[in-house]
């Protein structure tokens, strides 16, 4: 956030917005309406979440009568209490955290390794691997629901953390992103290191990878988001209630397991809680992304 602030108050930005009449009219012409539009759009994007939070603290009748009010008339934490008392919400959350952490770490490492190999290391079969990767990217995850169940079962890792985590450890899209990024780094940097006698892994690890921080960050975000929000893999990989993750648990809650009828405050509370970790991580990484891109801009 600090970067954003700094940027917004940069001298030239200030100049652009406030001085010289010619520039000023230009701001009005382009900036003013843009601003208005942006604020309206932002409201559309943000309000649903605010409504979601406030409704989770409402009573059910109030949620039905006054769905839009941002301040509940009768504050109640009944929905949250019910969630913790009558469901395995805590267990679901723990499982989600375990799986997401391991999967994200694994993906960052494996994807960047493979991406680097495809971008930079000439080896026999690279073209084939790359073609296969493209082909694999075209295989939609949802098509794999049944197949994945079959193979997970065949390997004897059905209904286990192994079965939940290992199949998610690599993704072709991530490899692709890393490959593209590595290709955009000038070869000259590595050539110097190679002349100095550095080996492939050292060049990768200590020279190229640090330069790829923005791409790594992208992978972290995508992997975290992807595995935290993954639903269908967990539907087919487990049946044990102790291995239920948040997505699966809340999805089943939404389709009426814990409750008959609508029960919106309860369901929204479940959704709010499962969004908090991902939101926190998002804001943390968001800041670093801004730093990285701001840094890139300065040069």
């Amino acid at each position, binding site marked *: 956030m600090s970067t954003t602030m700094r940027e917004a108050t940069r001298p030239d930005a200030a100049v652009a917005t406030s001085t010289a009449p010619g520039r000023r009219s230009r701001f009005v012409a382009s900036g003013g309406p843009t601003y208005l539009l942006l604020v309206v759009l932002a409201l559309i994007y943000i309000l649903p979440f605010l409504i979601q939070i406030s409704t989770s603290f409402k009573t059910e009748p109030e949620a*039905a009568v006054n769905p839009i009010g941002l301040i509940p008339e009768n504050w109640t934490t009944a929905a949250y209490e019910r969630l913790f008392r*009558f469901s395995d919400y805590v267990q679901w959350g723990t499982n989600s955290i375990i799986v997401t952490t391991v999967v994200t770490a694994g993906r960052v*490492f*494996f994807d960047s*390794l493979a991406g680097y190999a495809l971008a930079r290391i000439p080896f026999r079969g690279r073209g084939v691997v790359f073609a296969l990767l493209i082909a694999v990217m075209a295989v939609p995850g949802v098509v794999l629901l049944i197949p994945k*169940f079959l193979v*997970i*079962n*065949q*390997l*004897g*890792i*059905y*209904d286990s953390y192994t079965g939940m985590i*290992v199949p998610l450890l690599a993704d072709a899209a991530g490899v692709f992103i890393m490959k593209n990024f590595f290709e955009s780094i000038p070869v000259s940097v590595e050539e110097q290191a190679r002349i100095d006698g550095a080996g492939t*892994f*050292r060049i*990768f*690890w*200590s*020279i190229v990878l*640090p*330069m790829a*921080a923005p791409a790594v960050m992208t992978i972290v975000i995508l992997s975290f988001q992807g595995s935290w929000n993954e639903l269908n893999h967990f*539907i*087919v990989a487990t*049946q044990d*209630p102790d291995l*239920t993750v948040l997505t*699966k*648990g809340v999805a*089943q809650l939404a389709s*009426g*397991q814990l409750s*008959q*009828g*609508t029960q919106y405050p309860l369901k929204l509370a479940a959704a709010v809680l499962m969004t908090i970790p991902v939101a926190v991580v998002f804001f943390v990484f968001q800041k670093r992304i801004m730093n990285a891109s701001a*840094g890139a801009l300065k040069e």
Partner: protein
Amino acid sequence: MNPHGDTIRRTRRGRRLALMSVGAAATMMLAACGGGSGFEDQGAAAEQKSDAPISVLIGSSGDAETKAVEDSVKSWSDESGVKAEVQVASDLNQQLAQGFAGGEPPDVFYLSTDSLASYASNGSLEPYAADLENADAFFPSLREAFTYDDEFWCAPKDFSTLALVINTKLWDQAGLTDADIPTDWDGLRAAAEKLTKGKQVGLVFGPEYQRIGTFFEQNGGGLTNDEGTEATVNSPENVEALTFVKDMMKDGVAAYSSDVGAGWGGEAFGKELGAMTIEGNWIEGAMKNDFPGVDYKVVKLPAGPAGEATLQYTNCWGVAAQSDNIDGAKSLVEHLTTPEQQMAFAEAFGVMPSVEEVADEWRAKYPDLAAFIDGADTAANLPTQEGAADVISEMNAQLATLKDKEPQQILDSVQKNMEAVVSQ
């Protein structure tokens, strides 16, 4: 940022990571080649062990049901010395399918009439029910519901029927008395008209055959003939019944629960969006928990031109053919279906006992709900042929747009699908 700094430390760590990745890859290769398979060999039946632990998979309506089943299973377990564990499925159908496909199904589980045919026909089920000591104690219509290929596969767990539920406050406000309680279709329509006021609809029910079908039966219709050998979906009786329903909806005196913004009939009723609904005995628990302030009474569904009729719903205790303790499973089911246990379940979560002998006891205990158990005599089952459930869900899809469609047209298209199922 200095990308060249700290090279040595990074390199060492890097090398370790590289080794790890190679190791991981190798492990996976091994797993791919020689890993133990989750699929069990299904050729031979499992070796029977009389003390093998029994797993029970249930789909629970709530804590009360879970606890009641757990208590009952535990008491059997204490008595027999065989370990037994109850697991509550979050999605019973799916979990059961995955259990069978994975070669580790539960020993004993809830099984719906919908799924009976497919599990029975592929050899997943143990046809044990005829051997039970209390095999003859069940209601005949329930035995029939779980008979497939002339074999009585599994013991009915409990059952529910549909009845007419009336909001007494709204009833009185509309100036209606006990004499107005509908006994035939005209009476139902008249009451619904009087009860329709502003946003409040006279009669609400779920947009599905599982409710609307009662009218079919009351008119002497149904989806198949009694033997289940012939599809009769577009019979004149059914067309007439569906037209009656459509007309009420068109005139605004009846509506689907979804049309008034509720998830099911009970919710629409509880929120007083509708003054009458067609629901089963599960509505009692829902009213008690979610809408304690709403007073209601339960009466039999009105008779149609062909007499009284309702629909019934039931589950059974399925036993897996590949269980390694089938005798234990059978003994557990016998325990679960004793009159005492049946009454205990009834008390805990509002179901009706599947054994005939305690029907009177139940009626005496719950006089307000007597209409439900009285319905047992005239209750019809939904068709249970393999694929029939799909046809009904397709039918429900069409019934959702009943207002814009011709009853004849809907029933004709369903007839075609039902014929395919019946002729199998």
